[in-house]
């Protein structure tokens, strides 16, 4: 059964939070992958919702492209909203 496909598992810890990548597993199909994910990644009450995604369906950035992808953002401080004065009394900004 070494030919079982790989699945990536995303778990939402609480209502209101996003699903976060938790790890990966092998399973013969999506339904079994979901159940394996429940057994492997939520057995200590880590989640209220689980997604499984075929690993082959994920298109990822390559480490080789890291400079071209991410470095140009490094010196653009004006993209960070740090130049505003926050009015007094605003609690939820």
């Amino acid at each position, binding site marked *: 059964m070494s030919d079982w496909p790989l699945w990536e598992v995303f778990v939402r810890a609480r209502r209101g939070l996003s699903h976060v990548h938790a790890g990966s*597993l092998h399973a013969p199909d999506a339904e079994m992958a979901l*159940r*394996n994910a429940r*057994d492997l990644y939520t*057995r200590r009450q880590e989640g209220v919702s689980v997604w499984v995604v075929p690993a082959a369906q994920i298109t990822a950035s390559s480490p080789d492209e890291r400079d071209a992808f991410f470095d140009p953002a490094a010196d653009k401080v004006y993209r960070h909203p740090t130049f505003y004065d926050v009015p007094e009394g605003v609690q939820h900004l």
Partner: protein
Amino acid sequence: MSSPHPTAHVDYLLAVADDALVNAQRLGWWISRAPQLEEDVALANIGLDQLGQARALLAHAGQVEGAGRSEDDLAYLRDERDFRNVHLVEREQTDFGVAMARLLMVAAWQSHLYAALRGSTDATLAAVAAKAVKEVAYHLDHAGRWVVRLGDGTEESHLRMQAALDAEWPHLEELFDGSFLDPALVADGVAVDPATLREPVLSTILAVVEEATLAAPRVRPAVGGGRTGRHTEQMGYLLAEMQHLTRSHPGATW
């Protein structure tokens, strides 16, 4: 109406508890041996659910008995003839198809049993059943999915799943035999008459068997006796493995 003998109440709790305990012990065998790491963990989780049910029920049985025996005393210091589990759960299961066929049967049985026991007049038993019913729903789902995948899989997996079903089926009837049970326990609402669960349990199992394109085996029921302490040869080996540490090192703790 005569009130049930206290021993009958204890025996009934032991019957339900020992099925779970021995089932847990057999499921534990699969850890490191299942077809895939993921299945190792799944079967370990299911086994631990079963162990949890057994612990709660054994602790309660010890209290009802009133002789000062703890859950550990009951699990580790009883001899074979004092165990009340059915033969279905105690036999070796070294074939994955057999393990899934058996888990399907045990989980179907426990699903209906625990659902009914939620209304038991024994409040502790009812509370354990209410918690366990959610756990065994997952066990039933897990076993059912494997039986369907193997039964409706390749020609080879179909043949082996059918053989597994044929091997386990004769031991199904023992679950529905209530002859060990004091009728006063049923009348008092403590216990559920196992015979009344026969149809719903069979219909749950048969729905999976049909979806799996398998055939319900036409076999004669095996001779039972587990509920009165008469076990198969393999029970002794199981207990030797399960109990030897406690018996060799009395009072040992972590």
